[in-house]
C-alpha cells in the first residue's frame, strides 16, 4: 500500500489524523470517563427465554453495604419508564414487569459504589419465575398453538408483526408462468451480531441544580438519541447533552437506545450522582441489536440460455421479542427492496413477514445498509443456483444479465433509481485480476483428481446514504444532516458534524473534503463530532450514510464559505465578484492570475476592519443542512477462491479479489481499510459466525469462545481493484463504501464453497459453512444452522 509523506491538499492518501491518539493509547472511550462521586450500575438479566415474573425480592441486595439503589420494572412503572419506544414504533421493556421475553432480558438494575459490589448484589436479588414455552424457531412463530409473546399489547393473539410487499406481483407471476426455466431455493441468512470490540455503555450525570443531564454513551447517532431521551424521559431537550466520545466499533450495534442507558439515567436521577454502566461481553452478545435472521424462499425465472427475466422472494423475518429494527419508517424490511440486484430483469416481487420470537430485539444492524446484505445474498445465491441448474459459468451468466452503462440512471422494477454505474467494466476487472479462466482450468484438473476447489463470484449494488427526507425518517426525524464550518482569522478551520465516527476516519476524510473545496490543509482543519452541544443536528452514522449525506453537507458548507470569501476578496482586490476566478486556495482576478488573495488572507480580512459591500456580513462562517436528492449506489465485483478438504469439510480461502466502485474516493487508504474490514466481516459470517438457540431459547453464542470472529489466520491477503463512476447527484461524486464489502463478500465466499462442492451434487447450504456444515452438506444431510446441532 502506498503511504503518504505529505498531507494532500484535498483528496488523496493520507494517514488518519485520529490514529495519533489511538496508536498511543490515548483514545477516550465511555469506560474511560470517570467523574467525581461516580457510582456503578449492573443489570440483572433473565436466565429464561420466556417466563412469567411472579415476584422480585430486592431486600437482600438493598441491604448490601455498598449498594445505593436497586431499580426494578415496578419502580420504573411508577415513573412511566418501564417501557420505551423502539425505532420501529413498537415498545420495549426497559426492565421487565410482567414477563421476560428473551434470555438476557433486563430485569433489575443495581447502583453501587463500585463495579464489583454492583455485580455481587445481583446475586442477592431473588426473582421467582414461572417458565413458559418459548418460541425459538421463527418458522413456528405463526403456528396456531404458538405461545403469544407480546401479550402486553391488548388484543394481541399471535406473533405476527407485519406483512410488507414490493414490486408488481401480477406481472411477476405472469413472467414466471411463461418462463422456460424456474430455479427455486430456500436459504437462511442466520442471526449474527455486530460484536464491536467496545461493548455498549453510558455514564449518566444528572445535575440536580441545573437539571441538565449529560450522558456519555456509545452511540452512532447522538442527536437522535438526545431527541429520544427527551421523548422517553420527558426531559426538556435543551437540558440534555449527549456525548459520544471515541467509539470502539459500532457496525450498527450502537444505533438504538438500550435499557442499560436508560437505567443509568434513572440511577443518576435517584442517587444524585453520576452512574456508569458498561455491559460485559456476554451481555453485548446476548441482549443487544442482532442482525439478519431472514428465512428466504427465492425463485428466479430465465430463458434456457440464461437471460434472467424475474425474481420472486418470500421472507420470514425473525425480529425477536420487541420490534426494535432501526430503519426509515416507511421501510419495515429496510432496503430489502433492492433484491433485484445488478440485473436487467422484467419483473420482481417480494413479500416479507415479520414475526416475534423469544430472542433479543434489534435487527438491521451489522454493516448491512438496511437489509441490503440479505437482498444481495439472496440474488447472488439465486444467480448461482440458476447457473448450477443451467450448467452455465456463473461469471458468464452475470455478465449476460448485468445492467448496461447506458441504462443509468436506472429505474428498478421495485422502484429504486440507481444513480450511476458501469457494471461490466467492474466485473471484467475482477475476472482479469483473479485470472478467472486459468482458475477454471485448474479447477477442472483438480476435480479430475478428486479435489474440491471453488471459485465464487458475486456482484452487488448497494443503496446507501439515507436519505431524501420526503421518503425517509426515523421516528419522524427526517434523514438530512447539518454541517457548520468556522474559519478562524488565521485561516484555520473547525468543521462541526452530526455524524459520529466509530473507526471510519471522519476526522481525516471530512477535513480532506474541506481542503479540496477551500485549499486549507487537512492538518489545519479540526473536525468536531459526537457532542450534541457542539454540533448541528443530524441522524448519525450507519447505513454507509456519512459520506453520502454529511460528506455532501461538508462540501456544500465549504462552498458557501468559498462564496463568502469571494465577496471579501472582491473588496480586498477592489474588483467586482464577477471578475474573480477560483483556483484551489485562492480567488484571483480573471486574466490576471498574479492579482489574487489566498483563503488565509481572505479569512484575516473577513475578520478585520475592511469595508465590505453593503449588506454583506463579516467573517466566513457558514452552516447548511443537506437533504440528499437520492441514495447513492456503490457497486462491486468480488471473486473468492477456496480449497475444501473433502474429508474434514475445512475451507481455506486461497484468494479474494474485490473491485469496488464507490464513486470518487476521498482518501483511498481509508476506503481500502474499510473494504479490508468488511471482507473479513463477510468471511466471518460465511464461514463461522452465527447466533443459534437451543429448544429452550438458550443463546448458544454468548461469548467469543462460541461466537467466532475471524482472525488474520482465516483471511487471505485481500487483493483490491477499483473503478470510479461518480455519483451524478452528490456534490463531489462520492458514494458510501463503509458496508460494501460486508454486503458483497458473504455471497462470494458461499458461492465459492458451493462451487467447490458441485461435484458432490450440493446446490445450496446455509451459512455459516463451518467444517461440520460443509461435511454434512456433502453427505446430503445438512443441519439447521440457527438451531442447536443435535
Amino acid at each position, binding site marked *: 500500500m502506498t503511504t503518504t509523506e505529505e498531507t494532500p491538499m484535498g483528496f488523496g492518501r493520507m494517514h488518519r489524523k485520529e490514529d495519533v491518539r489511538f496508536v498511543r493509547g490515548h483514545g477516550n472511550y465511555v*469506560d474511560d470517563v470517570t467523574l467525581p462521586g461516580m457510582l456503578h450500575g449492573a443489570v440483572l438479566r433473565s436466565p429464561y427465554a420466556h417466563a412469567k415474573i411472579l415476584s422480585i425480592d430486592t431486600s437482600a441486595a438493598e441491604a448490601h453495604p455498598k449498594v445505593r439503589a436497586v431499580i426494578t420494572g415496578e419502580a420504573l412503572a411508577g415513573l412511566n419508564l418501564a417501557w420505551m419506544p423502539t425505532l420501529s414504533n413498537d415498545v420495549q421493556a426497559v426492565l421487565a414487569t410482567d414477563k421476560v421475553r428473551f434470555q438476557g432480558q433486563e430485569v433489575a438494575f443495581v447502583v453501587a459504589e463500585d463495579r464489583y459490589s454492583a455485580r455481587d448484589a445481583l446475586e442477592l436479588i431473588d426473582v421467582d419465575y414461572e417458565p413458559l414455552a418459548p418460541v425459538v424457531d421463527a418458522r413456528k412463530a405463526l403456528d396456531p398453538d404458538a405461545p403469544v409473546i407480546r401479550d402486553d399489547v391488548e388484543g394481541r393473539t399471535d406473533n405476527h408483526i407485519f406483512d410488507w410487499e414490493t414490486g408488481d406481483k401480477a406481472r411477476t407471476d405472469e413472467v414466471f408462468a411463461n418462463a422456460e426455466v424456474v430455479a427455486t431455493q430456500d436459504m437462511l441468512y442466520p442471526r449474527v451480531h455486530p460484536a464491536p470490540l467496545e461493548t455498549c455503555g453510558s455514564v449518566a450525570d444528572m445535575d440536580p441544580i441545573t437539571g441538565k443531564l449529560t450522558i456519555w454513551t456509545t452511540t452512532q447517532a447522538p442527536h437522535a438519541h438526545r431527541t429520544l431521551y427527551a421523548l422517553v424521559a420527558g426531559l426538556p431537550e435543551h437540558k440534555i447533552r449527549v456525548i459520544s466520545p471515541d467509539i470502539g466499533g459500532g457496525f450498527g450495534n450502537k444505533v438504538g437506545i438500550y435499557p442499560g442507558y436508560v437505567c443509568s439515567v434513572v440511577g443518576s436521577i435517584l442517587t444524585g450522582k453520576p452512574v456508569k454502566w458498561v455491559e460485559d461481553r456476554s451481555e453485548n452478545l446476548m441482549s443487544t441489536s442482532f442482525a439478519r435472521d431472514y428465512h428466504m424462499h427465492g425463485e428466479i425465472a430465465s430463458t434456457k440460455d440464461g437471460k434472467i427475466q424475474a425474481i420472486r422472494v418470500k421472507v420470514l423475518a425473525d425480529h425477536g421479542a420487541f420490534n426494535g429494527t432501526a430503519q426509515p419508517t416507511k421501510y419495515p424490511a429496510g432496503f430489502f427492496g433492492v433484491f433485484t440486484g445488478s440485473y436487467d430483469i422484467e419483473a420482481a416481487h417480494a413479500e416479507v413477514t415479520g414475526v416475534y420470537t423469544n430472542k433479543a430485539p434489534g435487527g438491521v444492524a451489522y454493516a448491512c445498509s438496511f437489509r441490503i446484505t440479505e437482498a444481495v445474498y439472496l440474488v447472488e445465491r439465486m444467480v448461482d443456483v440458476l447457473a448450477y441448474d443451467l450448467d452455465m459459468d456463473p461469471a458468464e451468466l452475470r455478465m449476460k444479465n448485468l445492467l448496461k452503462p447506458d441504462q443509468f440512471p436506472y429505474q428498478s422494477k421495485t422502484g429504486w433509481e440507481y444513480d450511476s454505474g458501469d457494471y461490466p467494466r467492474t466485473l471484467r476487472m475482477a475476472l482479469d485480476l483473479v485470472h478467472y479462466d486459468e482458475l477454471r482450468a485448474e479447477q477442472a484438473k483438480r476435480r479430475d483428481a478428486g479435489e474440491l476447489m471453488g471459485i465464487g463470484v458475486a456482484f452487488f449494488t448497494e443503496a446507501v446514504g439515507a436519505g431524501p427526507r420526503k421518503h425517509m425518517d426515523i421516528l419522524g426525524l427526517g434523514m438530512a444532516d447539518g454541517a457548520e464550518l468556522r474559519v478562524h482569522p488565521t485561516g484555520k478551520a473547525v468543521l462541526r458534524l452530526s455524524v459520529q465516527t466509530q473507526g471510519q476516519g471522519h476526522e481525516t476524510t471530512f477535513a480532506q473534503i474541506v481542503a479540496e473545496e477551500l485549499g486549507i490543509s487537512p492538518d489545519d482543519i479540526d473536525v468536531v463530532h459526537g457532542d450534541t452541544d457542539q454540533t448541528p443536528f443530524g441522524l448519525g452514522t450507519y447505513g454507509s450514510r456519512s459520506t453520502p449525506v454529511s460528506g455532501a453537507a461538508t462540501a456544500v458548507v465549504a462552498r458557501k464559505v468559498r462564496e463568502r470569501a469571494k465577496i471579501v476578496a472582491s473588496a480586498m482586490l477592489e474588483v467586482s465578484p464577477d471578475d474573480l476566478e477560483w483556483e484551489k486556495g485562492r480567488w484571483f482576478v480573471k486574466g490576471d492570475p498574479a492579482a489574487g488573495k489566498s483563503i488565509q488572507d481572505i479569512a484575516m480580512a473577513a475578520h478585520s476592519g475592511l469595508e465590505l459591500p453593503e449588506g454583506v456580513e463579516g467573517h466566513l462562517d457558514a452552516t447548511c443542512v443537506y437533504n440528499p436528492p437520492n441514495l447513492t449506489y456503490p457497486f462491486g465485483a468480488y471473486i473468492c477462491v477456496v480449497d475444501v478438504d473433502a474429508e474434514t469439510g475445512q475451507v481455506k480461502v486461497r484468494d479474494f479479489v474485490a473491485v469496488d466502485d464507490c464513486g470518487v474516493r476521498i482518501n483511498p487508504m481509508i476506503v481500502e481499510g474499510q473494504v479490508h474490514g468488511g471482507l473479513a466481516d463477510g468471511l466471518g459470517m460465511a464461514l463461522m459466525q452465527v447466533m443459534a438457540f437451543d429448544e429452550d431459547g438458550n443463546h448458544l*453464542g454468548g461469548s467469543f469462545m462460541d461466537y467466532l470472529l475471524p482472525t488474520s489466520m*482465516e483471511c487471505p491477503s485481500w487483493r483490491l481493484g477499483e473503478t470510479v463512476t461518480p455519483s451524478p447527484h452528490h456534490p463531489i461524486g462520492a458514494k458510501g463504501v463503509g458496508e460494501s464489502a460486508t454486503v458483497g463478500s458473504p455471497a462470494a465466499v458461499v458461492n465459492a464453497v458451493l462451487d467447490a462442492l458441485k461435484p458432490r451434487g450440493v446446490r445450496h447450504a446455509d451459512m455459516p459453512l463451518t467444517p461440520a456444515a460443509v461435511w454434512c452438506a456433502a453427505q446430503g444431510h445438512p443441519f439447521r444452522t440457527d438451531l442447536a446441532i443435535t
Partner: protein
Amino acid sequence: MQVPAQFQYEKATSVAHALSLLGKYGPESRIVAGGHSLIPMMKLRLAQPQALIDINEITELNKISVEEHMLYIGAMVRHAELLASALAGEHFPIFHDAEKLIADPVVRNRGTVGGSLCQADPSEDLSAAFAAVRGEAVIEYGEGRRIVPIREFFAGPYETAVGDAELLVGVRVPIRSSASAYQKVERRAGDWAVAAAGAELRLEGDTVAEAGIGLTAVGATNFHAPEAEEFLVGGPATAERFARAGEIAAEHCEPVADQRGPADYKRHLAATLTARALGAALSRWHGRHQEA
C-alpha cells in the same frame, strides 16, 4: 467488563510454599498458573474459589530438560516455550504440531502446560498429545512425589488425579526412538478442537512395534485409543491399516453433538484425523531413518 467475586490471593515462592498454602486454604482454593481458563471462569462466576495460589514465580517449575532418558517439561512451562523448545521438538515433534494449533499467540505466551492438563477440558490438545506419547505426570505432596501415567491422570471432565493438597509439578516422557504428529480440525484459529488426534509410532523394519494414539474432543476415554493401538502393533505400517485403526478408534469414541458439529461428524473426524496423524508420524519416521 466481567468481574469475579471476592477471593484471597497468595503468591507462592516455592513448591513447598504452594503446598503449605493449599493446606492452609483447603479444597476451596485453586492454583493459578497462566490463568487463561480459571480467570475467565471466575469472571463468568462459574468458578468462585475462596483463594488463589499463584505459582507464577516458582521458577523451578519452568524448565524443559532431559533427565534420566526422560524429556521433562515443568508445569509452568508456557505453551510458547514448549513450541519454541528445540529439545522437545527433536524428541517429540507432536508437541510442536499441537502447540501451533493451541489457542493463539497471546494465550500461548501466558498459558502453561500444567494448567492445561489440570484444567482437564475434554477438548484439551495437550491431554491427547501426552496420552499419545505415554507421558507421566509428576505430582508433589507434603511427604514426597508420585508418578501418574497421563493415561490414568484424568478422572473425568475437569477432574484429575491431583488431590486437594497436591501440585502437578511437571510431565515427563520416556525418550525412545519414535516419531509423532498431531492433526486438528478447528472452526477457526484459536478455537477448541472440533476433533483432534495425535499419533506416535516406532517401527521395527516395516512392522509397527509401538503405537500411541491420543484423541481429544471426541469422548475417547482418557484421551487415547487402546483398541486401535493394539490393532496396529505387530502389523505393517500401511495407509490401509492406518485407516482401519482410525475406524477402530472412532468406534470406541463417544462424541457429543454441540455447535462444533454433530456426533457422526466428530466420529468421522476421529477416524480421519487418526489415520492422518499416523500417516504424518510415519513420514517423520521414514524421514529420520533415511537421514540416519
